[in-house]
């Protein structure tokens, strides 16, 4: 119980009640929907990508505390990163969420989510926004739906 409380404490205080970049981005040239049908997590990501740089990023949607906090933190991290950097962070984040192992220099604020690996059913919630971003970066089509099912 205490571990769970600790995990949530960090998330809630940080992001899920007051998510960052929680808005529609008018300048976006890429949007992507992420959907976790099993739980009902649903996010729409907006990105302005120019010259392989994520100039701006925001999101809208509804979801559990873990998915919301994960999305919120992700947007603060990815703003200003290159597409290649975003992919590299995604790989490390995915490793951390699945195993709990991470390098705190690399993960920074994302490390508050490391405890999610103890709750395998929730890994999907934390990873949903990242899959959504990576998917939309992969394609030239500017509208994508990513589903975890």
């Amino acid at each position, binding site marked *: *119980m205490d571990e*769970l*409380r600790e995990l*949530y404490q960090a998330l*809630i205080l940080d992001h899920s009640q007051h998510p960052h970049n929680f808005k529609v981005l008018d300048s976006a040239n890429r949007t992507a929907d992420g959907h976790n*049908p*099993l*739980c*009902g*997590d*649903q996010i729409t990501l907006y990105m302005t990508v120019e010259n392989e740089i994520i100039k701006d990023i925001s999101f809208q949607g*509804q*979801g*559990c*505390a*873990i998915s919301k906090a994960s999305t919120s933190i992700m947007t603060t991290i990815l703003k200003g990163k290159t597409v290649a950097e975003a992919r590299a962070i995604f790989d490390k984040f995915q490793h951390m969420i699945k195993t709990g192992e991470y390098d705190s220099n690399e993960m920074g604020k994302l490390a508050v989510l490391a405890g999610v690996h103890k*709750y395998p059913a*929730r890994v999907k*919630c934390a990873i949903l926004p990242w899959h959504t971003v990576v998917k939309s970066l992969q394609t030239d089509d500017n509208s994508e739906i990513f589903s975890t099912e």
Partner: protein
Amino acid sequence: MSFDINQIRADFPNLRQEVHGKPLVYLDNAATTHKPQAVIDAVSRFYGEYNANVHRALYQHAAEATEAYEAVRDKVANLINAGDRRSIVFTGGTTESINLVAYAWARKNLGPGDEILVTEMEHHSNLVPWQLVARDTGATLRCIPIKTDGTLDLDDSDKYFTSRTKLVAFTHQSNVFGTINPAKEIIELAHAVGAVTVVDAAQSVPHLPVDVTDLDCDFLAFSGHKMLGPTGVGVLYGKPELLESMSPFFGGGEMIQTVTMEKSTWNELPWKFEAGTPKIAQVIGLGAAIDYLNEIGYEAIGEYEKKLTDYTLERLAAVEGMSIHGQAAKRGPVISFNLADVHPHDLAQFLDMEGVAIRAGHHCAQPIMQRLGVPATSRASMYIYNTSEEIDRLVQSIENTRRFMTGN
């Protein structure tokens, strides 16, 4: 037999388990129920003492297995008052039963211009098969809407039940709202326009006396695992004359009479629809579950569940920020709800830490979630072994979570 809750609880080994160091409070019975020792013993006695394939061999155990297997067909026929044992087909579950009707009846009898009528409160397993039939046959899928109280809106029934309606498929009891639908009325409306009816009884047979003769339904489907029985077995009831008129669904052993290289003739009902080695152990386990339910009796079950449901509704309604979905007067022990500012997923995770198992999600009924305008709900569903003390623990855990998550 009187309803002795302590005796009943003692019959279920799983209820003695602890989860995260707390005694288990299992409130996900709409998904699947626990098994009494009698069911576990029946399955293990089959495997341990008279394991054999059915219907084929001449030795002692094969005869015993066949007798045990076929005896359950009579138990099922009695349970739902089917009159004719030939109308009881063993399947893998509700989903398989419905798909059997979709493939072996609907695809053969529907075409462009015909309409299939379902309701807005269907489980995906009584919706998706009909979407596929509509796609393959050119028939149109229509839907009876629900009202905000979680009951069907049958006010303008003329709009839905028309001369084009060929098949009406609906759930007897909602797995989200607990609503018990007026099955007899719907079947009468369907028959008045000449439509065939399919009743999804997955949530009703575990809790209510279901009488297919009185209902006059054409097909009815349910699952063993939601009524104390094993997973992997379900029932399709069909009126014998309809089943008789249908071609087989699966081809293979058991369902044939004579086979040449060119063609085969079919076995009689119900074996025409039971191709291959059937679910012998599961069917025998289902028989033990039916015996167990009959011994308590549906009347006692209904009374006990009603009291417990009323108590749960009352306790939940008093929680701050609580909205309960569905206020049907006639309902079963299934309650869906949302708590303001707490996502169902987070709630279920915290409850798990307290040993309380509820369900969070769309409950295989995404159209209902869309209708309610929520991404997901939490759901507590009770059965004969749950107690008001367990409901107190549910409510206490919800309160604790609410305070923690909202900070007040």
